[in-house]
């Protein structure tokens, strides 16, 4: 078993730059959304496709980075 299709893309969520890293280990895709500095995890998800894992992780990150008012 090894990590495959390792990829990191940078995007913006609620005005914050984040890294979205995804890869496949075994039958699962894993996705981590991290802040750009210090690259700490904001949210994570796993699913059978990359798209689904990214979607879930980004939704969770969007919720966590929602402006507080």
């Amino acid at each position: 078993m090894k990590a495959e299709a390792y990829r990191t893309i940078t995007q913006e969520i609620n005005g914050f730059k984040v890294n979205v890293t995804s890869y496949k280990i075994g039958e699962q895709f894993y996705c981590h959304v991290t802040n750009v500095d210090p690259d700490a995890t904001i949210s994570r998800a796993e699913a059978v496709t990359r798209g689904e894992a990214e979607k879930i992780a980004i939704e969770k990150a969007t919720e966590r980075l929602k402006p507080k008012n």
Partner: protein
Amino acid sequence: MANYANPDVLVSTDWVEQHKSDPKVVIAEVDVDTNAYNEGHVAGAVGWNWQTQLCDTVRRDVIGKADLEKLLGSSGIGNDTMVVLYGDNNNWFAAWALWQLKMYGHKDVRIMNGGRKKWLAEGRPLTKDAPAPKPKTYKAAERNESLRAYLRQVQDAMNSPRSVMVDVRSPDEFTGKILSPPGLPETCQRGGHIPGAKNIPWGKACNEDGTFKSADELAALYSGQGVTADKNVIAYCRIGERSSHTWFVLKYLLGYPNVVNYDGSWTEWGNLVNAPVEKGA
């Protein structure tokens, strides 16, 4: 490795793959994201949780001596075992673990250069199998507090020309624009930095693949801001973990003789009543 002052503190991913079954070596993964280990890890590697296993869970402090002895012993580590640490995010928390092991006098502890990120990116083998280390009896030394700075030392250092403080947080935390990195709990009352501190974010010590920059690049990075080997250097961040990474770089890769980690960091200073604070760059 790259002309470091102490090249033996690093091992490569290749080296780990070749030695992962060596009975004299124990590999331990310490991640920022405490779930990462369960996705898959180096075969035989134990996983340590920084939130529950590498700290005192009651009062704010590093792990106690008895708990460290228990953790290391149950991980199959004896006093003469070589411990190789690795983790996600450029070995951020692997460095935090190394700092604590050094405080308790463990002789041979190293970091896998590039950490989990490089291991995964290189497509090296992973397993979900739980390791079964043979327990050993571990006897830790009394904690060496000289590797650490407490508040009083930092307050004294602030007025000493022989000392320099390195704030390794992001520029936005340093200037006071934000109180903590996006998505992480706010844990200070005031933003900014300790007066006189130099801002050299910890991640600048690493290459894109997670490995450490060369000794020449590191020397230029720190000395360019007046953080030189002739000074008493105090590294700090928000909770002391990012700064343990910089502490490792300065002490072991560059060989600075006097460098300490202020683990109270901004969550202590930024909450003090009447403490001096500087804002802006």
